[in-house]
């Protein structure tokens, strides 16, 4: 797996020859990414007859292009209507939506697109070059470390998304508890299912996403005439192509920010199961920590939008690394790719890079070309899609409710899932109105089953000894980081309060 420049150029040239399958995949990916409930994974499943009929390389290029473009599409509704298309875009509305409310939707979309394309392109090339080294990251993280990484994820989201860290932590752990609903993995004992057979197989994520973000938002936005505030409307009416290009310029001026936050995404993407949702929040938090203007985060700050969008596109290439190197998919879409490759009799592992280099390195080259070919599609989108923000909420709210509830139905075909989405919608409504951030609950629901899997594995290995949680050096280092991240907001509040007390005396 050593780097060969001739192979690299050959790979890119070969990936360009697949333009005929990449372009429709981009259009499809942008659409399915933007509609909550229609994830890239679901779409690839729906289109399995097509991908299985294609030869493995073409099928893989199609899936990769769809995956990368859907990641970008997910940011569009997150910015325009405060509804992330997928959980990976859950941190995008934190600053993207306030920009929309201020009438800067064109600019926000342009910033998001540039960050996504630049972050995705950069990390894809980096992944291609650093494949042998990056693949080892996953080897250092065992059950104990993964437990701490997940708790770390919850605490980060709690401190970022909610106005009050305690409320954020309650929301996150409430989400984790809900994520533990279902039959236990070993003895299939039903737990917390309230007698519903539909919950034996865990709480489905799409109804949770649809309810917490879309349904709750629909019940909140009816308080306003349109998504854009009255002051923002004047700004919106005056804006046009110059604002879109200004967004591109602003995003490009944050090139260093794009680079390091997308690298965060790439590294987290390599860890199986961690995913884009954690990466985008970690990148957001790191961006805020090192910013000269942390107080502006959450008010429509450019860096607060650049960080999660660069990071979640960095994850896209990261998830393919463990898939192709050690055969462990980094996420749901990568898992489906694994199934398709296995159907074609492709054996995944280090040997693939020697026996079929075009198949092994090809997905990364295809991803780079996808990001490149996306550019002419997305700028007109920024200009025209932002019009949705000035549509009256009297029309938007029923549209959001009906289409997203049906999206909750699609994955499993149960009407129960629509009721479940409504229940999550009510929880989300209460959370939004009382300062418990919906993103913290959703990330909890996502991480609940994963946390349980790693927790059980650690307990099995230690024969029930809880001290195993503190048995590894890396794990202990992560525990310290976790406690510091929880304590830090309280310490900062205490310091500020003390400064305020001392101020009048000066």
């Amino acid at each position, binding site marked *: 797996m050593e780097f060969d420049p001739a192979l690299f150029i050959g790979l890119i040239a070969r990936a360009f020859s697949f333009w005929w399958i990449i372009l429709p995949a981009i259009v499809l990916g942008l659409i399915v990414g933007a509609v909550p409930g229609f994830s890239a994974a679901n779409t690839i499943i729906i289109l399995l007859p097509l991908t299985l009929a294609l030869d493995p390389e073409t099928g893989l290029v199609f899936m990769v292009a769809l995956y990368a473009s859907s990641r970008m599409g997910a940011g569009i509704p997150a910015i325009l209507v405060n509804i992330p298309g997928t959980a990976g875009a859950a941190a995008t509305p934190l600053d993207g939506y306030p920009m929309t409310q201020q009438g800067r939707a064109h600019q926000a979309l342009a910033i998001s697109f540039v960050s996504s394309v630049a972050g995705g392109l950069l990390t894809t090339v980096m992944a291609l070059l650093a494949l042998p080294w990056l693949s080892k990251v996953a080897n250092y993280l065992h059950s104990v470390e993964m437990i701490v990484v997940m708790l770390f994820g919850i605490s980060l989201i709690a401190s970022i998304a909610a106005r009050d860290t*305690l409320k954020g932590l309650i929301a996150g752990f*409430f989400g984790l508890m809900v994520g533990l609903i279902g039959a236990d993995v070993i003895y299939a004992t039903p737990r917390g299912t309230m007698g519903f057979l539909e919950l034996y197989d865990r709480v489905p994520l799409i109804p949770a996403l649809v309810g917490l973000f879309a349904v709750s938002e629909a019940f909140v936005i*009816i308080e306003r005439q349109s998504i854009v505030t009255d002051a923002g409307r004047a700004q919106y009416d005056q804006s046009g192509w110059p604002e879109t290009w200004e967004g591109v310029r602003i995003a490009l001026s944050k090139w260093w920010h794009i680079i390091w936050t997308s690298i965060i995404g790439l590294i987290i993407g390599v860890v199986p199961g961690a995913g884009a949702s954690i990466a985008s929040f970690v990148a957001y938090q790191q961006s805020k920590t090192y910013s000269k203007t942390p107080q502006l985060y959450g008010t429509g700050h450019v860096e607060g939008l650049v960080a999660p969008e660069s990071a979640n596109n960095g994850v896209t290439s990261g998830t393919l690394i463990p898939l192709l190197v050690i055969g462990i998919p980094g996420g749901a879409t990568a898992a489906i790719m694994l199934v398709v490759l296995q159907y074609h009799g492709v054996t995944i592992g280090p040997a693939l890079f020697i026996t079929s280099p075009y198949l092994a390195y090809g997905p990364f080259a295809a991803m780079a070309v996808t990001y490149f070919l996306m550019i002419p599609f997305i700028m007109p989108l920024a200009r025209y899609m932002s019009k949705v923000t000035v549509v009256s909420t009297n029309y938007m709210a029923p*549209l959001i409710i009906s289409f997203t509830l049906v999206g909750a139905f699609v994955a499993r075909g149960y009407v129960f899932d629509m009721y479940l989405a409504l229940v999550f919608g009510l929880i989300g409504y209460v959370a939004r109105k009382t300062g418990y951030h919906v993103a913290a609950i959703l990330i909890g629901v996502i991480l609940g089953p994963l*946390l349980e899997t790693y*927790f059980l594995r650690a307990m099995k290995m230690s024969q029930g000894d809880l001290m195993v949680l503190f048995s590894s050096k890396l794990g202990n280092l992560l525990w310290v980081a976790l406690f510091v991240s929880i304590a830090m907001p309280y310490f900062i509040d205490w310091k500020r309060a003390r400064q305020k007390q001392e101020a009048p005396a000066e």
Partner: protein
Amino acid sequence: MTQDKPAAQPGAEHRKKRHLGGDLIIPVAGLVFTVYYFSTILDSPWTAQVSAFFVGTILIVLTVIFLTKAAIELRRGDADLHAGAIAEPANLAGTRLILLALTIGYIFVIQFTGFTLTTFIFMTAAMGLLTRGKRMGFVVMLSALVSVAGWALFIYAFKTRFPVGPFERLMDFLV
């Protein structure tokens, strides 16, 4: 740059209280759910219990801290148990409840009448409610257009598994 404080007004001792009623819903719901969850695993093997006890215990501790803080605020008179933001603005409370009822009706009916017809009826009713019956002609046209476009894109073009009813069956027969 110091300004003289205004003279105390009668009744100024009644500071604006924080409304905690709404804030308590999620912690209390979490607490109740955790207790219920524990009740379902008491007789289970330890593998089914261990992670729930780990997560649930942390949630209970966090909730107790929150409730203690709330109790202190209530005792000091800094807060009350009003619902607060959840019920605001008051003039929209009725509309919101009717929209919720329409949504429940939409989910119940869609399994019998399918996506297109139910979406058309729901959108007409919900938009009519929110616009207070203004521009009903436009509302009906928009609802019809959106429902048929949804059918064309998701059911006809993408073959997505949406709830099927008489309209979808008829179109399946015709197209």
